[in-house]
């Protein structure tokens, strides 16, 4: 069993770390306060190939493996969650979904520009009235000759206003036997007439990012844009989450590390009761817990990444990594604020931003409660993953480069 990171992985880690530290970190505090992403960030990520890191070269990507994707997410979120969210929805929900379920034509037409960062993608699944209860979404897609006409509202969509494409799941068979069997997924060009979208404001966290809503009013989508087959929408969406969730887990691990570093730095400087507070045991206990959670989260997501590389179904492991890392990151950020005392309550230090950012991850990409139910199903042997018609492709350096 090889637990070490390869030379390649270490170089990827260092490269993304340097980029985030040099080009985003210096102004991130300001951007969080302004409530938007700095305009150079996404174009720079595109330029550096980060938006296509885990897509084969022949589809416009960089041909790196799934572990590299995870490492990149960890480094990005250590600076700010908003950076990793871009990867989650663009690389995870959009690119990897196309890679897994797309036809060759769809990959050529959509995946190539997406992986190159020429187009930006997002995932439009959640609705105002349905999140966890995804099977009961209400947006519809009605077949009309060679197209489908989409109607409905999607909400809490990251990059809604900036994206060019969205992966959208709607109900195409209203009277299916089981609600989840009547869904289909489409790749929608957001410039299509009938699409309106805008940003949502007033979020607790991830303020340096963009979250919005998309409204579909008689939007005509070519039938060739259906990802997977009619009725497979639920499966396609769950696959999308297997990809997105992985990036969230890796990112949350980076957040724990950021909280840990802030805490140790501060605790080594701040003095109280005649000594550095890092010499006080109650402070040490908090730091120890953060350090432990960092180690555990890291192992969980790296294992999931390894399984993805091998082409082994990893819904269980990815869900576990997401659940553990996100809950731990919220705890870590909260304790980091505590360690900073009153300064933690002020935006003078980054820890309050970590805390506000961390909370979101417990809600999106499958809430903690959903993850718990998934884990229980596996643990009680009530869930057996059947082979999918299209499996997530394993990493193969030769064919991917």
């Amino acid at each position, binding site marked *: 069993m090889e637990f070490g990171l*390869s*030379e*390649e992985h*270490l*170089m*990827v880690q*260092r*490269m993304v770390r*340097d*980029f985030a530290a040099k080009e985003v970190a210096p102004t991130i505090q300001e951007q969080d306060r302004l409530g938007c992403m700095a305009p150079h960030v996404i174009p720079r990520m595109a330029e*550096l*190939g980060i938006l296509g*890191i885990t897509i084969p070269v022949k589809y416009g990507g*960089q*041909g*790196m493996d799934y572990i*590299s994707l995870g490492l990149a997410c960890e480094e990005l979120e250590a600076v700010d969650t908003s950076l990793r969210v871009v990867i989650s929805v663009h690389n995870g929900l959009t690119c990897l979904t196309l890679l897994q379920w797309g036809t060759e034509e769809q990959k050529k037409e959509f995946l190539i520009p997406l992986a190159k960062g020429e187009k930006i993608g997002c995932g439009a699944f959640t609705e105002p009235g349905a999140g966890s209860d995804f099977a009961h979404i209400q947006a519809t897609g009605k077949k009309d000759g060679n197209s489908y006409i989409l109607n409905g509202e999607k909400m809490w969509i990251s990059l809604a206003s900036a994206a060019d494409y969205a992966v959208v799941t709607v109900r195409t068979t209203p009277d299916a036997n089981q609600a989840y069997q009547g869904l289909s997924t489409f790749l929608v060009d957001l410039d299509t007439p009938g699409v309106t979208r805008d940003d949502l404001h007033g979020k607790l966290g991830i303020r340096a990012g963009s979250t919005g809503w998309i409204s579909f009013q008689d939007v005509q989508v070519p039938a060739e844009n259906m990802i997977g087959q009619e009725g497979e929408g639920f499966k396609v969406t769950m696959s999308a989450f297997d990809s997105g969730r992985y990036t969230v887990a890796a990112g949350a691990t980076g957040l724990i590390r950021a909280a840990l570093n802030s805490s140790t730095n501060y605790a080594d400087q701040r003095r109280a009761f005649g000594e550095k507070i890092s010499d006080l045991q109650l402070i040490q206990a908090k730091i120890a817990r953060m350090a432990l959670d960092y180690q555990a989260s890291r192992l969980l997501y790296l294992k999931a990444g390894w399984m993805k590389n091998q082409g082994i179904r990893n819904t269980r492991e990815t869900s576990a990594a997401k659940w553990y890392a996100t809950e731990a990151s919220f705890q870590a950020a909260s304790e980091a604020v505590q360690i900073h005392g009153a300064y933690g309550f002020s935006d003078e230090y980054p820890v309050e931003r970590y805390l506000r950012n961390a909370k979101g991850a417990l809600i999106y990409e499958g809430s903690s409660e959903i993850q718990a139910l998934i884990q229980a199903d596996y643990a009680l042997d009530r869930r057996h993953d059947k082979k999918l018609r299209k499996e997530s492709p394993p990493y193969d*350096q030769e064919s991917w*480069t």
Partner: protein
Amino acid sequence: MKIVVCVKQVPDTAATMVVENGNISWGDAPLIINPWDEFAVEAALNLAADHGGEVTALCLGKEEETEAIKHALAMGADAAVMVSDPALEGSDNVAASKVISAAITKIGEVDLVLFGQQSVDTDTGLLPVQVARLLNWPSLTLVSKFEGITPAEGRLQVVRSMEEGNQVVESRMPAVVSVTKDYGEPRYPSFMGIRKASKAEYPVWSLADLGIDPPSSTIAWPEVSEPAEKEIVTEVIDGDTPEEKAKNLIDKLIAEKVL
């Protein structure tokens, strides 16, 4: 045009350096390419792209220390050479310069040798000038800009820094140049570069391969120490008038040698 960039491997600049049993230790801090060298690699890659040529990264170190050489390859260097020999342990600058000069001679037909302006560990900045002297090639240190290069005619024009301002110098080639931060931000390794670098194979030359005997060193470091842990003792500067206070402070600052 054939360009050789000399790179060195050093501990991460954020590392905590300590002295353990008389030896320098950086704990488990990672080893990285000397940050100054990245500017030299960037310059080399640009020159090769603009004028046609090949960039070879040359590293003097231990065979297993691959970070510096791999980083240079990942940035886009075409080839690499490592020089490694147990007899080189503890070499001083002149000895290292002799080895590097021999390696450059062995590589052959080199038009330009680039160095970072200094290394973050020993901070001497001597290698570029000593290698130049040994090869009897012009030395151009602290270059921030390459204004013109005509490899066919063997001519080079650079802007280099001195305390009093910048000097524009025309030089014959081959020449040995050290590059400053003012040159411009070095590129990140690309993902393709990272892949290529991790698979790259490059020769490792020993002193025997270079055909030279171990050069002797005259500079030794018999003792290394950590700076004394300073208890901050605030000294209050007094005076009856602001002028007197100012004068007293100036005297203290002079004594403290921080001006």
